[in-house]
């Protein structure tokens, strides 16, 4: 039985939970980086020895990227920093929001989405990154505005079979590149920006998270700042898929890694009421790419008034797929039956910012 590693990034440190019995019981270990927030984690299983990558930020001493090749026993960083804005940009790294290993056929490529709004590419497994100039120099840049959490690229999707990339930023929306990041276009047609005078702009949407269907980057899901959408043309156009949900607001969306059409969202009541509807924390799962939704998640709490942030939800690569949710009151729940039921893995941690899980060989 393979071991399952769950990494939990919080406002005040990093914890690991590990299960050796198919996710029935877990042992919790930590904290690492106590009193530093960990908003980005990647478990890169493309290597013979899995590499952990974390974005860490100290309120005092700033952000950095660190890696571990021994599952957290030791951590390393480049003296000069993995991510440094070139001098001509006049910018400084504020926070690493996303660390995303590329496909197996590009084994050393890792992407980073950062604040201020930027995308970075590493060709050495995440030890150092280069600014993706095509996006940084995009003429829309001056009009990208920070959401409440800051102005950042928070979602990065790389097509394993081509040079296509899709990113999402708040605010700004979805941007698409078909040439590995050299050129970019806004890709928001159909997504509402109801909070703007023109609710259907080319860009400026507040897309909270995007995920690629198991069929690949041609089919995408988006949880917007009000609005749940699907694209069947790699993001060129979007259609609403929110019928059957109790709310179209939320922060996260997850797609099944191997079964087409399955995705999950975690609805919150509204922009003005960022708590689970009726105080019942639940997942909603679609088995038909958003044609219909079913409430799932027995074992998740009632009388619960906390939210799940955009990266505090993930799926694993085990069979059947595990679903993980972390809450702002420091609880982490795991489902080993694709969301039907959940059990508590950890409680009383600091606010959970991100969770990532992977099977270790």
């Amino acid at each position, binding site marked *: 039985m393979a071991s399952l590693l769950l990494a939990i990034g919080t406002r005040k440190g990093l914890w690991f939970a590990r299960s050796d019995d198919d996710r029935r019981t877990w042992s919790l270990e930590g904290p690492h980086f106590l*009193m530093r927030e960990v908003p980005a984690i990647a478990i890169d299983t493309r290597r013979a020895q899995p590499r952990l990558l974390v974005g860490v930020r*100290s*309120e*005092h*001493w*700033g952000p*950095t990227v660190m890696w571990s090749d021994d599952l957290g026993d030791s951590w390393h*960083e480049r*003296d*000069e*920093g993995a991510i*440094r*804005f070139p*001098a001509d940009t*006049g*910018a*400084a*790294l504020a926070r690493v929001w996303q660390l995303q290993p590329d496909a197996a056929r590009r084994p050393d490529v890792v992407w980073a989405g950062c604040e201020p709004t930027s995308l970075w590419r590493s060709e050495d497994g995440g030890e150092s990154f280069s600014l993706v100039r095509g996006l940084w120099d995009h003429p829309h840049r001056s009009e990208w505005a920070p959401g409440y959490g800051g102005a950042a690229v928070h979602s990065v999707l790389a097509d394993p079979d081509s040079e296509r990339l899709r990113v999402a930023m708040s605010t700004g929306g979805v941007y698409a590149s078909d040439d590995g990041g050299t050129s970019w276009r806004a890709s928001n047609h159909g997504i509402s920006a109801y909070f703007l005078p023109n609710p259907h702009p080319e860009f400026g949407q507040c897309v909270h998270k995007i995920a690629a269907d198991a069929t690949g980057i041609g089919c995408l899901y988006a949880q917007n700042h009000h609005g749940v959408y699907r694209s069947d043309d790699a993001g060129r156009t979007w259609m609403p898929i929110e019928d059957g949900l109790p709310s179209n607001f939320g922060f996260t969306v997850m797609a099944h890694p191997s079964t087409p059409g399955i995705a999950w969202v975690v609805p919150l009541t509204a922009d003005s009421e960022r708590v689970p509807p009726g105080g019942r924390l639940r997942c909603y799962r679609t088995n038909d790419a958003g044609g219909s939704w079913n409430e799932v998640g027995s074992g998740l709490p009632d009388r619960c008034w906390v939210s799940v942030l955009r990266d505090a939800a993930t799926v694993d690569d085990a069979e059947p797929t595990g679903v993980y949710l972390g809450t702002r009151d420091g609880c982490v729940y795991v489902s080993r039956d694709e969301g039907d039921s959940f059990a508590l893995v950890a409680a009383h941690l600091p606010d959970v910012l991100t969770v990532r899980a992977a099977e270790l060989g």
Partner: protein
Amino acid sequence: MVAVLLPGALQQLAGGARRVDVDVPSDGTVGDVLFRLGAAHPALQRRLLDETGTVRRYVNVYVDGSDIRHASGLATPVADGAVVHILASVAGG
């Protein structure tokens, strides 16, 4: 020579030293001190200054007991024998 006193959280980035002596010119500034310190300990410099060379918001730097934010910032002069004291400000929740 100027003495730089480091907080505990940063000492491992300077080989474990609480005090690091930095040689600066007679008309040197706090900026000279921090950049020379950073040349020897780049990971330490990143904790103090961002890529634009700005002192991080919650890093406080004192020269002989005076906050450089109330003087001339990184252009604050440092005399030979001065003590540059780096402290974390009271911040966080």
